[in-house]
């Protein structure tokens, strides 16, 4: 005992006195007198700058002890008036605004917007373009779910899945970069086609991702699905019945976790989704655990869809063959006068809408039903009104109902399980 003393690396302060009593040290626990509440409720402000709110969301919670009596989400901190800005931009100039809304799955928003415009104008895109967009959207569904998975696991104290999922996300980032030159702000689509066709070897990289990704997903499954802590934190927390979920307008995995089988890809199919072989996973209990399981399975289904889409990816042009919609090739625009004029006219004037009308076009985003509602006059080159039907916005509105009666720590888990993105909530 006299010769060798055990050194404690943790829990001891360097300025520790000989009697084991710490000098003024923040590391040492000591008894903190609790303020007396006298039975009053307490008001706790969470956010807007708080990692557990997944963005600049502010929650004002009324607590009885540690139980949430009521919680009020305050949003708008990221309001960028995208819808108003869109009214001052030509149809194609709106595309960069769309990926800034959901920066966790930007390609879905790029695609959804131009699909809405094409529906409004009656433009039929090429077969190759359809399959390419479908591939991009399914890839970003995985991309969005992976971020959700990693950050939500952190919220219940599991750090490792975050490292796994972000490693896989990095590979999709690289695919984004190879295709568009940007990792997040992709702006990959144009009315009537794409900014560019898939680069050489891109599909091989995607196939390589599809080969190894399910293995990582399986590893995360092993880390979380039967993990006692994870189960304890998620099962029976934030329960909502299917009927209530529908009445509250929930869509996407949040609605399906409550047992309602509504998926835009199945119920209002676009881009031949009805010809792909995939299943829509639904939950039973409508709690955080079911929302987790539904998203995990959706990633598996997306992998299947991606494989089928890569198999049937046809050759051919990616842009529609219509000079009033598609730009000439860059080589032509730089080398002959007519193409240059064509390019100039299309960029400065924009694409005129053939007739007045409005159009609502829903797609299944990673967060839920993402709809683009567009209003145009005859010949207008800008939207008269551009409205995004925001899935996260509607999903978040149910948070007070879900959180009432739970603990504060469950409030964090419930908020995370809804999979929100503030860029799109605040627009």
């Amino acid at each position, binding site marked *: 005992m006299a010769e060798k003393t055990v050194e404690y690396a943790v829990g001891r302060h360097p300025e520790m006195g000989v009697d084991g009593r710490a*000098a003024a040290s923040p590391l040492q626990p*000591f008894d903190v007198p609790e*303020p007396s509440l006298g039975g009053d409720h307490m*008001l706790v402000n969470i956010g807007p700058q708080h990692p557990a709110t997944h963005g600049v969301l502010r929650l*004002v919670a009324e607590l009885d002890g540690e139980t949430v009596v009521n919680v009020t989400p305050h949003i708008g901190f990221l309001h960028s008036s995208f819808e108003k800005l869109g009214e001052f931009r030509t149809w194609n100039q709106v595309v960069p605004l769309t990926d800034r809304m959901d920066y966790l799955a930007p390609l879905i928003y790029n695609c959804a917007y131009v699909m809405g415009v094409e529906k409004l104008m009656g433009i039929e895109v090429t077969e190759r373009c359809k399959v390419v967009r479908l591939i991009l959207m399914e890839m970003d569904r995985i991309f969005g779910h992976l971020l959700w998975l990693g950050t939500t696991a952190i919220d219940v104290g599991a750090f490792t899945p975050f490292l796994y999922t972000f490693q896989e996300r990095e590979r999709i980032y690289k695919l984004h970069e190879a295709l568009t030159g940007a990792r997040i702000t992709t702006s990959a689509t144009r009315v009537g086609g794409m900014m560019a066709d898939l680069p050489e070897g891109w599909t091989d990289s995607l196939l390589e991702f599809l080969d190894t990704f399910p293995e990582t997903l399986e590893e995360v499954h092993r880390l979380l699905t039967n993990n006692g802590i994870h189960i304890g934190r998620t099962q029976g927390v934030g329960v909502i019945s299917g009927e209530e979920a529908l009445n509250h307008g929930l869509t996407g995995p949040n609605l399906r976790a409550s047992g309602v089988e509504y998926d835009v890809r199945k119920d209002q199919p676009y881009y031949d989704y009805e010809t792909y072989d995939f299943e829509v996973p639904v939950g039973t209990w409508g709690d955080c655990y079911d929302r987790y399981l539904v998203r995990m399975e959706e990633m598996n289904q997306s992998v299947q869809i991606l494989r089928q889409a890569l198999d049937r990816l046809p050759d051919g042009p990616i842009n529609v063959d219509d000079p009033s919609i598609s730009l000439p090739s860059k080589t032509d625009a730089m080398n002959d006068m007519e193409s240059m004029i064509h390019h100039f006219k299309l960029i400065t004037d924009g694409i005129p809408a053939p007739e007045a009308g409005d*159009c609502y076009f829903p797609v299944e985003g990673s967060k839920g*039903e993402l709809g683009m509602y567009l209003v145009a006059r005859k010949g207008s080159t800008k939207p008269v009104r551009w409205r995004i039907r925001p899935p996260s*916005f509607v999903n978040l509105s149910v948070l007070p109902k879900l959180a009432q009666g739970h603990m504060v720590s469950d409030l964090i888990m419930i908020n995370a399980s809804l999979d929100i993105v503030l860029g799109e909530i605040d627009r």
Partner: protein
Amino acid sequence: MSEPERNEPEDGPQGEASAGLDALDEGPRPSDPEPDEPGLPEADPDAHPTVRALLDTFEDAVVRHETVSGDQHVVYLDPERNREILRWLHDEPEHAYKLLVDVTGVDLGDGAPLQVVYQLFSLDHARALRVKCLLPLDALEIDSVVPIWAAADWLEREVYDLFGITFRDHPDLRRILMPQDYAEGHPLRKDFPLRGRFSRAEQTRRALAQDVDRFYMPSERAIGREPQEVHFPDPNAPDEPESGPGADA
């Protein structure tokens, strides 16, 4: 601040009519000032079973019916009876529009009535329907549909915030995206300049003059109270038998 003139034709994306700093002040003007073309022709009501049933049941309240973008059906309703008819669409098992997808507003500008747009979807019948109510600019009030669909809560608040349409009987009609004390109006109206109505200096002055009341609702202020002072014990002080939890409460 001068408001942009709505009928002034715009020459192109550059907006050449006002020069230099004036144009900055005014902000971009509304797009597409073309005169309104005659409305779309009435569509065939038999193409959509719900439209047929609506015409049979509420003949006098269905103002018109259009088909747009190929296959999308739009029904214009009398705004005085919106809740009654929407409740019927929700409850009737033949239609069962259990999902209220979206509520939004549309301002076409030039004094045209504001539109309140309801986007409905029926899961049982895999059928979508768009319902519109037109509100003249001097009577921007309509019944809230929150009693039918809870989803309308935030969506109607957003329409109120950005268009200034009041929803009667809404449980909590406050601004949602803009600050509660936002004084410049309703941003998605066509007469609202893109940069806002106040000068940048005035906007900055207001931002700096915020106080805590701005961040809490009155009901929240009633719960919260002044933080209580908590005295931490000095760990260096010699042990005293009296010191312990609750000593200063």
